[in-house]
């Protein structure tokens, strides 16, 4: 594993190498080199399996972290490639030519976070949402509760609890929900 990381560090500007547990490491790379690194890992280093692509929204830092999780069946090692991109109007190089399922992930990320992957097939087709006219719903600033209240309104006879408050009241009824 160390040899692989040394090789990668020689050829790419990888940083934040983090061994999460035996058999799993994550690293960070700039967005311009990410596609080349992922291709290299697939073609030369045996990381032939794409577990998934996903995104983490760090709204406080103004970035999205894209996570490409790759697996090597021979060495039984999983490598997470992290790529930071700006939250607003950012694009990322598409990897739909590397794995057949990659375009589906990219289509989902487009719909749920608004990230653009130029050239990725069927990118603007609806994935899970039909006729969505709000901001992409997985972004942290999208308030599900406010959306529900605005879209569906209040209905007479319908009562809902805040689950955390309700749980405390259930567990500590005599103290008015105070568990201390």
């Amino acid at each position, binding site marked *: 594993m160390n040899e692989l990381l040394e090789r990668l560090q020689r050829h790419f500007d990888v940083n934040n190498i*983090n061994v*999460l*547990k035996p*058999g*799993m490491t*994550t690293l960070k790379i700039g967005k311009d080199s990410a596609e080349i690194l992922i291709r290299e890992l697939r073609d030369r280093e045996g990381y*032939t*399996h*794409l*577990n*998934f692509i*996903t995104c*983490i*929204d760090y709204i406080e830092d103004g970035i999205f972290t894209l*996570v490409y*999780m790759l697996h090597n*069946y021979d060495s*039984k090692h*999983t490598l*997470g490639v992290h790529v930071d991109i700006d939250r607003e109007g950012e694009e990322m190089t598409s990897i*739909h*030519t590397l*794995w*057949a*399922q990659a*375009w*589906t*992930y990219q289509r*989902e990320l487009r719909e*749920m976070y608004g990230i653009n992957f130029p050239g990725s*097939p*069927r990118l603007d087709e*609806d*994935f*899970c*949402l*039909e006729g969505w006219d709000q901001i992409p*719903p*997985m972004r*942290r600033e*999208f308030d*599900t509760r406010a959306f529900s209240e605005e879209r569906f309104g209040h209905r007479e006879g319908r009562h809902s609890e805040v*689950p*955390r408050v309700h*749980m*405390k009241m259930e*567990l500590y009824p005599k103290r008015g929900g105070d*568990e201390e």
Partner: protein
Amino acid sequence: MTLSTGHSAALDFAQPEPPDLSSGKYVKLWQGPQHPGITGNMSLELVLDGDTIVSCKTHVGYLHRGFEKLMERRTFIQNFTVVCRIAVPEPTFNEYLYSHAVEEISGIEVPERAIWLRTMNLEMMRLASFLMWIGGQSGAFGQYTVPNWTLAYRDYVLDLFEEMTGARIYHMYIVPGGVRAGLPDGFEERARKIMKGAEKLLDQIERVMFNNVVFKARSKGLGIITPDMVDPYGIVGPNARACGLARDIRKDEPYLAYDRLDFETISGNEPDAYGRAYLRLQETRQSINLIRQCLDHAPTDGPFQADMPNVLHWKVPAGETYVKAECTRGEYGYYMVTDGSEFVRRVHVRGPSYTHAIAVMERLAVGTNIADIAGLMVSLHTYPPEIER
């Protein structure tokens, strides 16, 4: 009836040109979302030339409930009511992986007894899910006897779940730190009786279904997955093993008590719907064997839950992990990122159906007869909620 289908070793991922519907040569037909031959709430947009499919597009979204978003706004314990609903026939894998991710990030050690009970619980889930699947596969080719048998017998397995966990479908039995309870009195005896009956049932199914000339004729040669498609398409589980690849996370990267169980990875050499079905039948038998081994070895006393604080005061430190397990359809995984707050920062659920039902299905459907599309879908064993978040 056209029997064979699929592209052989086609690794060109380019999207095919859509057929010219204005030519009058083609008919567009929707299979689903309300259709008995569809695996859950999803739909296929099919374009037909006669009764042969020339184009297929998978549409999902009918089950989108925003699971991943919901989890970011609820405390760690509250998420249990969400995770088990992500795969209705197999909620236990979600419970285990979610719990395991929390445990890994928090550094919680699970007691030995809980490890064995979790293993048994997962294998019971595999058995129940495969029984449901065998019925679906048989029904998709017009044999309605087998579904009646298997769905009825699945209920006996659900009885065991009810005894063990208090619930039939959404058990929420596996929780961070261990499991919620030990086994009730007399459980082992009843479980062994049900396992014996299940074996007998599988023998009958093999005779009735796998030797049936109609089932053979319709499933052999349908939906061929070649070994060189496996990695480029992200194919996992029985769909990959049926074409000869001996990959099983339980064996390759053992978790829970699998390294102490005696079993071998089953792989086949018939990468079509028939081969996949037969492999799953063998894996169902293997699952019964593993449940028996768990009953033999599981400690009957000792703690089944690590010392945990009040659920309202769980402190999960900042961290990141990806945990995975072999569910009935292959690699099922949870990617979790925490930031030290009382809420999870991000959970991503990796389900095998994500690629099996979209990229793989859209490829294999082309050239298939419309009558066989339901059988093909079931043979890929897909669950839409995994795709839809």
